[in-house]
C-alpha cells in the first residue's frame, strides 16, 4: 500500500498536468468537429452513422495526398503553404461532403422506414467499404506529414502551446459558431430542427425531408473533412483510424447530449481532456495495475458510463427516451 501511495504521487508535476491539459484540449477540438457529424445525423435520423469516422479518415488522406503532390514542406514560403493547405482542405471538404451525400442516398435513404437494425447494418457495411477501399488501393500503413507549421508559445516552465494547437482550437470553435448560426438562423437550419423534433410533422408542414437530411449529411461530412486537416497537422493517419476515432467522437457527442451542437463541442473537449490525463496518469491512479496500454478502454468505459447513467448527456438538451 505504501508502494501504491508512492505511485499515486510520483511523476505528477504541475507542468506535466498542464501540458496534458493543453494536449487534451487540442485533441478534443478534433473530436468535437467529428462529433458534430454524429450529433446532427442522430438528431435528424436517430441513426448512428458508423461510416462517419471513415469519411473523416478519407479526408485526412486527401489532404495528405495534396500536400504530397505539391511537395509542400516547412521550407515553403508561408503564403504558398497556406494556399496548399487551403486547397487541400477545400478539396477534402468537398470530397467528404459528396461522399456523405452519396452514402445517405445509397445506404440510408432506402431504409428510412425499415426495421431499426437495417440502417445500422448498412452503416457498418459502408464503413467496411470505405476502410477496405483505402486499405486496398491507397495504403495500409501509417503516414505522417513533416511538421508544416512551426512555432510555439511558452506558457509556464517547459510547457508550451504549438501554433498548430492554437490553430486546431480556434478553427474548430469558428466552425462550430458558424454551424450554430446555420442551424439557428437559416431556413434550412430551421428545417433541420423541425425534422429533429418530429419527422412526420415536419414533412406535413412542408419541410422537404430529403433535402434536409441530405443537407445534414453534407454539412456533417464537410466538417469531418475539415477535421482531417487539423488531424494530419499534428498526428499520423492510417486506413484504420476511422473506426476508433469515430467511436470516440460519437462518445463525445453522447457526452454533450446527442443532437446538441454546443454540447458536442463540450463533449469533445471533455473526452480529449479525460483521455490525455487518463493515459498519462492511469498507472498512478490504479496503483500500477493498469498501464497506458489500456488507453482506449478509457474512452469505452466513459462511453458506457455516460450511456448507462446519463443517456441524455451532461447538458441534457432533450430527454432521450427514444433511444
Amino acid at each position, binding site marked *: 500500500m505504501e508502494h501504491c501511495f508512492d505511485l499515486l504521487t510520483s511523476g505528477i508535476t504541475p507542468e506535466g498536468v498542464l501540458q496534458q491539459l493543453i494536449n487534451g484540449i487540442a485533441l478534443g477540438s478534433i473530436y468535437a468537429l467529428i462529433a458534430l457529424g454524429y450529433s446532427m445525423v442522430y438528431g435528424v435520423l*436517430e*441513426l*448512428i452513422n458508423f461510416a462517419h469516422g471513415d469519411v473523416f479518415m478519407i479526408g485526412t*488522406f486527401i489532404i*495528405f*495526398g495534396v500536400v*504530397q503532390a505539391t511537395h509542400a514542406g516547412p521550407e515553403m514560403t508561408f503564403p504558398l503553404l497556406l494556399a496548399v493547405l487551403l486547397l487541400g482542405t477545400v478539396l477534402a471538404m468537398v470530397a467528404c461532403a459528396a461522399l456523405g451525400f452519396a452514402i445517405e442516398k*445509397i*445506404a440510408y435513404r*432506402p*431504409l428510412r422506414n*425499415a*426495421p*431499426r*437494425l*437495417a440502417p*445500422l*447494418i*448498412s452503416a*457498418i*457495411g*459502408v*464503413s*467496411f*467499404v470505405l*476502410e*477496405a*477501399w483505402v*486499405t*486496398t*488501393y*491507397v*495504403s*495500409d500503413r501509417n*503516414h505522417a506529414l513533416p511538421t508544416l507549421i512551426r512555432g510555439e508559445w511558452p506558457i509556464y516552465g517547459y510547457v508550451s502551446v504549438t501554433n498548430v494547437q492554437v490553430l486546431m482550437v480556434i478553427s474548430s470553435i469558428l466552425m462550430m459558431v458558424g454551424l450554430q448560426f446555420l442551424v439557428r438562423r437559416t431556413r434550412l437550419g430551421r428545417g433541420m430542427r423541425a425534422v429533429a423534433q418530429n419527422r412526420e410533422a415536419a414533412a406535413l408542414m412542408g419541410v422537404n425531408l430529403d433535402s434536409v437530411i441530405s443537407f445534414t449529411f453534407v454539412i456533417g461530412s464537410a466538417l469531418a473533412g475539415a477535421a482531417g486537416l487539423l488531424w494530419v497537422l499534428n498526428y499520423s493517419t492510417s486506413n484504420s483510424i476511422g*473506426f476508433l476515432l469515430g*467511436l470516440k467522437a*460519437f462518445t463525445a457527442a453522447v457526452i454533450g447530449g446527442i443532437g446538441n451542437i454546443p454540447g458536442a463541442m463540450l463533449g469533445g473537449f471533455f473526452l480529449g481532456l479525460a483521455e490525455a490525463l487518463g493515459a498519462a496518469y492511469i498507472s498512478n491512479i490504479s496503483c*500500477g*495495475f*493498469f*498501464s497506458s*496500454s*489500456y488507453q*482506449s*478502454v478509457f474512452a*469505452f*468505459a466513459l*462511453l*458506457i458510463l455516460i*450511456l*448507462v447513467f446519463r*443517456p441524455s448527456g451532461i447538458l441534457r438538451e432533450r430527454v432521450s427516451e427514444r*433511444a
Partner: protein
Amino acid sequence: MNVLKALEFLLHGPFGDYPVGGLNFGSLLVLCWQVAVFGGLYLAIRILAKRGLRVSIPHVRLPGLAGRRPLRDVRVLLAIALILPLVEMLTGGYYLTVTYNVELYVLLAIGLNIVVGYTGLLDLGYVAFFAVGAYVYGIFASPQLGETLHATFHFLVPATVGSGVHISMLVMLPIAGLAAAGFGVLIGIPTLRLRGDYLAIVTLGFGEITRIFAQNLDTPVNITNGPNGVVRIDDMFIGGYSFGDIANHIGPISIPPFLNYYYLVLLLIVITVFFVARLATSRVGRAWTAIREDEVAAEVAGIHTRNLKLLAYASGGFFGGMAGAVFAAGSHVIAPESFQLFLSVLVLCMVVVGGMGSIQGAAVGAVAIGLPYFLSSQLASLRVLIFGVILVLMITFRPQGLLPSQQRQAELAETVDDGTGLPHVEAAADLRQL
C-alpha cells in the same frame, strides 16, 4: 482462375497494373473506373427497381419434396450438413477448413439470434462470449494455468503442474459455456435500461474492453499471456478418445482430427437448435418475443423483463462460450487478435441478413455470408470491401432478411384462416412440433 481475373477486371478495369498500394495516381484512376462502372450499375438497378422489377428470393422446389421449401426444412439442412464433409473428403478435401469455419459461425449466429432475433437486444459484442469461452478452455487445457500458479505461488505449487489440467470435454464444454453465460449476465446488468443503437454501442464497447483486457492481462499476474496468447492448448477428449489423435479410425477408415471437430460442432448446433426451437414456442420464448416487440407492454403483461433479458444474454452467451472452447481446442492457439470487433459484426450481419428471429434464417445467413467470405481469403482486404458492398446491397434491397420469421407466421395464418372459423388445434401443435 478465370473468375478471379474477371473479378479483377470488373474492379480495376484496365488500371489494375498501376502500382496501387501507395498514395498515387493509380488509386485515383481505379476510383474513377469504379465510380463509373458501379455507379452506373447501381443507377441501372435502381431505375429498374422503380419500374417494378422486384427482388425476391426464388422458391426452389426440389422434386420429391412436394412443395416444401428445402431451406426451411430442418431435416434437409441436417442431412446436407452430415454428408458434406464426407463428400468433400472424397473430392480432395480442399474446402474442409472453410466448411468448418462456416459451421462455427452457424453455431455463433444461432446463439446470437437468441439475443438479437428473439429478444431484440442489439448485441454488437458477441465476440466477448466467444472469447471468454475460448480463454476459459485455453487457460485450463494448456500449461498456462500451471505455469502461472507456479510462478505466483512457487512455494506451494510445484513446476510439474505446468503440463496443464486435463479434463474431459464433457466437463470443459459446459464450464466454458457457463463462464460465458455468467459474463453475459455481468454485461447484461448495467445495460438493462438501454435499447436499440445505444445498446449496440455499449455492447460493442464491452466487446472491445474484453479484448483489450485479454491483451494486457499478462501483468501483474499472467492470466492470458498478453498479446502472445495462450499456446499449446489440448485437443478435446472424451474418455480415452482424443480429437487430435491422427491414429483414430473406424475399421480401416481413418478419422482425421478435423472430422471430429466438425461433428462436435454439428452436435452443438443440433443441441442449440433444439433449445432455441423449443424455447421459442413456450412461455420463455414468447416472453422474449414480447420484450422485443414492446418492452413496456411486456412488463405490464406480467413479464419479469429484467430476469428474462438476463436469461437471454446468458443463453446466447452459453452457446457462444462453447463455440469459443471448440475454437480454442481446434486451433491449439488463441490470441487477442482472434477476437476482434469484426467477428461480432460478421455474426450480427449473418443474423440480420438471414432474417431475425428464425433459426433457419440465422443458419442460412451464416452460410450466405460466411462461405464467400472464407472462400476468398486470398483477396485480403478486397474481400472486406466486397463484403461491405454485399452487405449494403442485401440490406437495402431486402431489409427483412432472407428467411424472416414473420413470414412463417404469416404463412401459417394464410393456411389456417380457411373461412370456417373453427379453431385449429393442429396449427398450434404444428408450431410446437420440434
